[in-house]
């Protein structure tokens, strides 16, 4: 288990994998992130984020079987690991606490 920080983009990517259901691959992830964030996302950024997440142990990948519509090329499919899931939840909870604190402070 390596460095445990999660950047914003990495968090989006991680959540996208979870949201798309496991065993998804780079193309749908890119589409999803682009749609949700409403900004242009390059495929290279997605690859990099996926690779970093995998390295940190939040994602796991396997090669899928060859699919006919991709010209017979196989693809790497990603699944969120339990660690990844816990990390995402922790992040979410942390944000909630902060928002709660803000709400109690009556600033909004």
């Amino acid at each position, binding site marked *: 288990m390596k460095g445990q920080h999660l950047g914003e983009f990495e968090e989006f990517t991680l959540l996208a994998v979870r949201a798309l259901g496991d065993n998804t*691959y*780079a*193309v749908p992830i*890119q*589409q999803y992130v682009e749609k949700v964030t409403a900004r*242009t996302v*390059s*495929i*290279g*950024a997605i*690859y*990099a984020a996926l*690779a*970093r997440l*995998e*390295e940190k142990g939040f994602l796991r990948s396997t090669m899928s079987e060859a699919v006919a519509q*991709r*010209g017979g*090329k*196989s*693809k*790497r499919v990603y699944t969120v690991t339990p660690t990844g899931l816990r990390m995402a939840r922790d992040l979410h909870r942390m944000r909630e606490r902060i928002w709660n604190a803000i709400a109690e402070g009556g600033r909004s």
Partner: protein
Amino acid sequence: VTRLPRPARWLLRMSPVPRETRAEVQADLHELFIKRRSDRGAAHAHWRLYHDVLSLWTQPRPATPDATSASVFALVRDAGADLRYAARLFGRQPAILLLTIVGLSLGLGIATAAFSIMNAATLRGEGPRDPDRAPVILRTTDRSMSTTWTYDEFLRLRDGSTRMQVEAVLTDVAPVRPTDGTTAADADAPSTALGLVSGGFFAATGARMLLGRPFEAADEQHADSPPVVVSFVFWTTALNRDPQAVGRRIRVGRAAGWIVGVAERGFSVPSNRRLWIPLTAYGAVYGPPLHLRQGYGGQVKRTPDMGVQVFGRLAPGVPISEAEAQLSGVAATLSGDSSGLGAEASPTAADSALRVRLDPHAGLGRMSSTERLAIVVPVFAVIGLVLLLACANVATVLIATAITRAREMGVRAALGASRWRIIRQLVTESLALGAVAAGIGLMFAVWAIPMIGTMIEAPAEADLAPDLNVYLFLGIVTLVSGVAAGLAPAWHGRGVDLLTPLTGEARQDRVAPKRLRSMLVMTQAAVSVLLIVMATLFVRATFRAAAIDVGFEPAGLYAVAPGLGDPFNSDGADIRNFWARAIPELQTVPGIASLSLTELTPFGGLVKTSVPRDAPGRLIWFKRTGAGYFETLGLRTLAGRTFTRDEVRSRAPVALISQSLARAYWQDRSPLGQVLPTEIPVPQLQPSFAPVRPVVIGVVADAITERLHERNTFAVYEPLHPASEHFAQLLIRVSPGATGVIDQAGKRLRSIDPQANVRIASVAARLQQEEGRPRMLATLSGVVGIVAIVLCVIGLYGLTASVVGQRAREMAVRAAIGADRGDLLRLLMWDSLRPVALGIVVGAAAAVLVSRAVLTAVLFGVSPQDPIAFGSAAVILLAVATVGVLVPTRRASAVDAASVLRQS
């Protein structure tokens, strides 16, 4: 759209995306491209596509360690596996293994032999250590410069020098034999190159000792039982590397010495000395001193009035100019009271002030860099040529096998091997081959070096055995040629889809690039032609040289050298006395028909020439001879007469000229009584005499007595004055049929003066040696040329066999649509022989350049563009190449079209 746009694919290939994931990325990009195009149009899809491709650079993935990491352990493990695989592979194809190893080991062997001889000749650390600080001290006056000082002068220089250590050396030969110290001097002990040196010689040259100690100053005192330092070569050959050598007794000439040290390998200063002995022992070695006299410093020196070479080692930090000035001061005091040398005895030279010049480049037998270059460049050219040939051959054979191994490579690639991994395997294979070949090549070289040494007439003292330099050279060359030969098939197969051969289809539409293959064949053909042309030229030159009429009968002609020291070092009285007694003595020997003194003996290596002003390309030989020279040599007098004894005695200004010279300057008129034309400068031995142009009194037949290849017969003969007889040698003509004459003559001459180291040389033997030069070159280049042809044909055969095998289907189709056997044969032959034909042209062009530039001197009048040589080279190569191509081609074209087509 079935594929990504080409620029995107191209960019993707350049991107940092690892090869293994590239296909996946491409599929992703393609999917996105299609989706976007259908959603938002082609323009948007393209824009986003290139944006994505570029993002692969700007957003690199973190490196993930994978299984094929290039750690050292993995490399070694892989190499082991590759080696085992290579062993199995070559075990299945012993013929190819054999061919490759034979080719490579021949190439490496020849290259190693050439290198080690050159190494011994020029590169090895012959000279003193740090030679720029060990200059030679030249004896300089206003009008002369000499390397020779008298021993007295040296002693004074040594005592007077404050800025540098001054040492002296004298080179000579003497019979040497290790003994137990009781037996007397052996007359037939091998003559050995000797350095007579002053006490600090080894300190000044910086020589290191393998055993024992170098000389010290005190060693100069032991003149009667002198200490001896032997060279590594002497220790190896004469003492069998005796570890107890120090302390052994050794006979050097007449002296009974003992060994105090063995110099380290490679030290043989100056010029191939075998052992060193103190200068003070000169008398002990060579018998009673010639001049026992009261020398400088009041001590009686038992040394002859000998000339020594003086050099020194500058004291640390002293610039060369400072030492030169200081020593010149010492030298200036010498000129007055010194006895001087013979040449300096004339009153004009002695009174000009004596100075010294320090010359670090004159060196102690050290070659100048230009001389070195003149040897190194051609040798390296030959080495390069031979290696190129061997490499090209091995590469051809490996490519031939690689074509048949395409399927295997496909399987490897399919199982996940990267291209780099496959290349590594190929290089490992060829390096393994190279290592085996290097071993065989080294054995070959060790066996061939002494032979080549004999061929090139290397001095017997030279240490030709391979040393560290040679092993290093062999190692590097093996590595480079192994890698190059291994990379050739890899380069040849570049750009070819490794997977295609697996599918068994598309064999015709992707013909492997042929350019490299053709280039290799062409190179081999070119080198072969070059070598064959040279061999043929040399063979023809050999016949031409043997057929040259030198104008006299060399058999029965002998040249006698007195061996009484250097005539320039003394006034030569002893040599003149020797001749005065020797000539009447020899005239009584039965079987000697005639004899005469002459300054220059035929093919003796010394020449005196002058270049006429009207024809700078012409050389005119000048010879001073005794009266009987023409009779002894057997030259007919065509007009006029030869010298009379009176003319010889009185140094009359008369001359004989050769027939060619007479014809060149007088055409049909008679030259008799005419003065030698002013266009011909006459070399003056004594500058003090006013130049007198001699009068022609006779014309003799042409004779070639100097350089066979120049076939130059312009000669001027002048009488040899008795006062100059110490420069002369004696020419003896033995009557035909007489036996034992020369032994008899040698015995008598030695009895006249036991100190004389009389040497009698056969002129016929010298001539044979002169004639043998092209023969030896012919042998060398012929052997290499034949090897070249064999290699070329082997490579061509292997290559053609595999290529026609590949094209069997094509041939079958051609046959099926109506081509007959002749058509197929012609097609295949032309395809295979085209590079050979090209190579012949290139090689012939190179041969013209080479023979023009460097070989004219040894061709004895054979034209460098000799049509026979070029024609025969082309014919020979084409013939063997045709056979090499024809055999596999015939087999291929005879194949049954139907069965081939059914198979595939």
